[in-house]
């Protein structure tokens, strides 16, 4: 489920206008780039939205993605975050089977992961957890044996870490391979 260690996060500030998501996704398919995950939401300024795009790309291709995205008139600014220079969070919802009296053991697992039970049925529970993608991966692995009925992840969102400067577009070329 996680992107591999080479993944890069692009936080793309775009104008909050109709069709902008279509322009971005059309560009990815037109140029043959793959999106690992994509999350869009409002920002502190209602004229703009922020897209968090995770791509499994390196080097020249990553540089092309950024340059081509920058050509879109509605794209204001792109910040490329290397994984070590970002705080990333993701939200996961999972409905787990609790047949055969296993409810309490699932609840216990949820507690360990700081997850919240948000819905309860006779034979299933829905759990919500927010955290790093690794944290979510671990929970997902551990509830799998109980039987996952449905699972949904949001895709990650990210901001630069405050401890050091973010990796800006300008430095893409100079990053060691």
């Amino acid at each position: 489920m996680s992107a591999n260690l080479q993944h890069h996060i692009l936080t793309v500030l775009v104008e909050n206008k109709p069709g902008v998501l279509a322009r971005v996704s059309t560009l990815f398919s037109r140029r043959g780039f793959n999106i690992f995950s994509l999350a869009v939401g409002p920002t502190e300024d209602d004229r703009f939205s922020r897209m968090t795009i995770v791509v499994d790309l390196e080097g020249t291709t990553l540089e092309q993605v950024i340059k081509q995205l920058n050509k879109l008139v509605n794209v204001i600014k792109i910040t490329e975050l290397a994984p070590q220079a970002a705080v990333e969070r993701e939200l996961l919802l999972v409905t787990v089977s609790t047949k055969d009296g296993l409810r309490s053991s699932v609840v216990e697992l949820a507690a360990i992961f700081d997850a919240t039970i948000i819905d309860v049925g006779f034979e299933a529970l829905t759990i919500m957890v927010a955290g790093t993608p690794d944290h979510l991966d671990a929970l997902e692995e551990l509830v799998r044996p109980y039987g996952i009925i449905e699972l949904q992840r949001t895709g990650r969102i990210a901001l630069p870490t405050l401890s050091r400067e973010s990796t800006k577009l300008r430095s893409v070329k100079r990053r060691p391979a």
Partner: protein
Amino acid sequence: MKLTGAQALIKSLEMEQVEVMFGLPGGAILPVYDPILDSSIRHVLVRHEQGAGHMAEGYAHATGRPGVCIVTSGPGATNIVTPLADAYMDSIPMVAITGQVATHAIGTDAFQECDTTGITMPVTKHNWLVTDVDDIPRIVREAFHVATTGRPGPVLIDVPKNISNAQMDWYWPDGVDLPGYKPTVTGHPRMIKEAALAIMAAERPIIYAGGGILKARAAEALRELAELTGIHVVTTLMARGAFPDDHPLCLGMPGMHGSYTAVMSMQRSDLLIALGSRFDDRVTGQVSSFAPDAKIIHCDIDPAELGKVRRPDVPIVGDCRLVIEALVKAVKHEIAKLPAGSPGRGDTTEWDGLLSEWRVSYPFRYQQEADGPLKPQFCIEQLRDRSPSDTIVAAGVGQHQMWASQFWRFNHPYTWINSGGLGTMGFAVPAAIGAKVGRPDKMVWAIDGDGCFQMTAQELVTASAERIPVKIAILNNAYLGMVRQWQELFYEERYSEVYLSPDLPDYVKWSEAMGCVAFRVDSPEDVGPTIDKANEIDDRPVVIDFRVDYREKVYPMVPAGGSNDSLILGPWAEMSADDRKAAGDPNAV
């Protein structure tokens, strides 16, 4: 002042100094056509919307101003997708206006509805769906700004019918506010200096000039740089005319069907100065073996072109004219530092000698026998020699296009109009019409193939009706010639679906039916006199049907995907100069 959306749209176009638009009305664009009657803008009524798009492109090519076309919703809009894609590939400034069904009907599969902005998103620089009548002047202003600045390109404005009918208070915005659109135009001084140093040090430098030179109006600056440094110039298919063919430093067109000298000079060079060119696959051939020893200086206004195909050693983002002017200054500065009496930059005597030797040994060749079949290259040479030197030439796509680029002498910028990137058959006739509308003072010849001509010939009705006296030379070899050439060379002469017939349709009767004067030429001795007759006609379109030899192929040729080092010279290369002279080759030395 209260105006309808339609009136505001036309008034906005007038504010942008539009003098002509090419179009065809229909239901959803009806409100916009009414104020055209009261406008100073000329409207050219086409016979197919694709023609309107290519005319706008031809106009933009010839004048440097944005071409404007206007069509209705649904099929009107889908018919201009090809011209939009063409303009996007060749960076042609163009503004397309399309009608759309009323906003409340959008998404309901209404009559003549289609998702125009969705369909054209990947083939426009930007597009707008107008949802508020008050936005019209602002959007028109933004559209012209985006189309003509940075890397030029096509844009589209989709106007729903209820928006054109709505009322608004007229205003004209002071400027544009596009926070995400700020093209870089001046080159980075440090990169300019690095480029100048690389130029000073190079022993086998070549300037690789592309279409960006013409877009940036940088032909003068390019000439100054070449003459200052003595560096030879290759002009790509999109840059023919950007540097005069008759200039001693001009090596002509590189690429798949380029001259031996242009191709090999790049292969052997130690410094490629790419100015407004984009390392297109038709130029580089196999990328891994392209110009293996060359350092690359790459200047382009589009940052995405730098490193897209080949990693530059000196990347320069900026407008070609401004960058070249800065480069000229920087090189002069370096020359001034040299000791007195120094010959200038690095020693290139050996290189210059090699290039001259190649030019003499490997010119473009063909043989026209006096009583033999008519050769297409001979027709082009006769056209060239019997028409003014600043004649604008438009071409379609295929063999005739390559021969036109090879055999014409382009000595003026903006005299060569063709579909380079997209390779749109049928481009020539409407593009020539658009060019003639933009430059009525110049002679305009379309050099077309018989396959291409059949795709858009109906626009000659437009030319006749609007009194636009273009001239069309059909190099009629009764085949889809370039495809035939590939089938001959790479598919063991298995000719699949390429035969067209020389006389079905009857091109002379067809052209006459469309209001043109038409001639047919079968033999070499009739070529010159017929062209002279055509050149005397200036009140209506003229078409000449040249019945040419179908066996003629375009050489040299780099097989698709092959290395440029594997250039095939063609049958003439195997003959000695004496044999060629004996066979009547005028180029034999």
